[in-house]
């Protein structure tokens, strides 16, 4: 593994561990003050989680940028091709499902929820977002593998 890549993994792990530790501290603080009755627990959990996932996403972007800089140009090209063609292909498949979901007839369909059986609007919105991301990820993986396989043959 390249030195730069090792550094990206190391700092990502350190950052993630620090954020998880911070989350435990925040959870303890929320628990303490909600037990006292000075704050609303549910509202506090949403705010703490919003801050946590925001930091996770910023960290992911920073780690992604560092990782992109650590790999060589061919590896970067493979990821660019995978992002554009694989991601777009996956999104196109998801787009079909999205268009069908807008039909009035789709209202009678029974759509499974991926969030612990929840059927509220937020759960379905998250299910749709997860499904789109999954399709894009599948497309990304397929194109990335195809890019390298076609360039490894003699």
């Amino acid at each position, binding site marked *: 593994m390249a030195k730069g890549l090792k550094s990206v993994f190391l700092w990502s792990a350190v950052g993630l561990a620090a954020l998880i530790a911070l989350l435990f501290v925040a959870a303890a603080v929320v628990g303490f003050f909600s037990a006292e009755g000075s704050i609303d627990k549910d509202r506090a959990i949403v705010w703490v989680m919003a801050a946590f996932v925001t930091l996770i996403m910023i960290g992911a972007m920073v780690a992604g940028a560092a990782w992109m800089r650590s790999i*060589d140009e061919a*590896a970067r090209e493979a990821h660019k091709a995978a992002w554009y063609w694989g991601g777009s292909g996956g999104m196109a498949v998801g787009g079909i499902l999205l268009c069908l979901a807008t039909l009035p007839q789709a209202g009678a369909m029974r759509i499974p929820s991926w969030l612990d059986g929840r059927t509220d609007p937020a759960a379905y919105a998250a299910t749709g977002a997860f499904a789109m991301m999954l399709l894009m990820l599948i497309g990304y993986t397929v194109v990335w593998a195809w890019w390298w396989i*076609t360039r*490894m*043959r003699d």
Partner: protein
Amino acid sequence: MNNRLKVLRAERDWSQADLAHALGVSRQTVNALETGRYDPSLPLAFKIARVFGQPIEAIFTED
């Protein structure tokens, strides 16, 4: 684009890993370059030319 990377590397008795190390890229990238299935960027082409001590046009030729 065609190239003489494999020949030049063999003349020096270098492995793909040796060349990859000299260029600062992965062995897979060297393989993709040698098979002509990946064309290098201009900076990498200059680096290749420097490593082999030859002008770019002596290493890379048009199809």
